[in-house]
């Protein structure tokens, strides 16, 4: 289960292609195609390297006019769906 203290990173094996303004993705392991746009795409870009969820949310609330509680709820929900699809890794080790 994801928490604000979870450290997450996007799955490096996912293949992506630019389809401006969207990002297309395919999971070779699952054979499924995905598309990200807007904030979802920004989150994907931000988690190329391991990142604590609370830090990610701090960045998003700075960029977008959204209250903290809503941002936390929606971001964790989005990350949970990425995790369910095998697109996300949860890192146990502390960040450098």
């Amino acid at each position, binding site marked *: 289960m994801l928490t604000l203290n979870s450290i997450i990173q996007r799955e490096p094996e996912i293949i992506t292609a630019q*389809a*401006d303004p*969207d990002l*297309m993705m*395919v999971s*070779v392991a699952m*054979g499924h*195609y995905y*598309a990200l746009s807007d904030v979802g795409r920004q989150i994907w870009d931000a988690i190329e390297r391991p990142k604590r969820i609370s830090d990610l949310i701090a960045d998003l609330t700075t960029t977008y006019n959204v209250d903290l509680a809503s941002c936390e709820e929606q971001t964790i929900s989005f990350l949970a769906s990425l995790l369910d699809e095998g697109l996300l890794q949860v890192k146990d080790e502390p960040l450098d």
Partner: protein
Amino acid sequence: MLCGWYTRSDISLTGVPPLERNREDADVVIQIGSGRSPLVNAARRIEHSFERSYLRIHNVVDFEISEGREIRIWPATEATQKDIEIFLLGPAWATLCHQRKILPLHASAIANETGITAFAGHPGAGKSTIAAMLSTLNYELVADDILPVDFNQELTPGAWPYLRRLKLHRDSITRFAFTPAEKVSENLDKEKYFVYPKFRSADKWRRLERIYVLEKDVIGSHDPIEPLAGADAVRALVDQTYHFDFIPGTRQFGEHLAFCTRLASKVAIYRLRWTPLNASADEFGSLICQHLKGAGRDPDHAS
């Protein structure tokens, strides 16, 4: 010639002139396989790898497709040449295209002086019907059911013609005043006939200008033509890839996604909502022709 490839075949192909017997440098060879089919004891009816693919069509034919240049056939005992041809020129040929890094788009296609327009869609969407309609308006038929798309050296997308004939039901043949040539098959697809429109594209590679993705109009859309962009355009091309089984079978997801993404960035793609049976030929044909004449000046065209 099929798809720009000189093709030598052991079996006759409806509407395809035979290659000279002495031509040894055929690009594609279709042969009757010797001995037993390699699929005799196979557990699965479809197997794909980078070099070789196998397809089994139950009670009709087994195929071995190799390295984008050879198709070997093991016909079932009671299979007819026409039944074999349906699958030879369908999924087997599409597999050949995949092996050659060419995207077999599930589409019919017509051409005018500016290039090719494709009409993609799932079975029953009306691909052949709309191509038939436009061929009566002097557009040249390029393909029916499969359009093999690739990029030239300048990375411009385009295609060679493929099977410049239409498979139509009797009512469409009557509707467009065609003369049916022969039945597609006595056993399979037996409600359809081959039709050869008067205007058919010459054997040359031409630029692909636009793609319409056909959808059934269930709500009576006020504006039946809608541009697609970004992920919607790419998703449409992925969805309309003929014999998509090849992609997961060879795990070439990355190459396929890259191809579709590049194609979507260079070709204008639209969603076209219509109902093949109800659409007035004159009204709808006029609508499409007007939209086609906007090619080259279309503000929705992706660069």
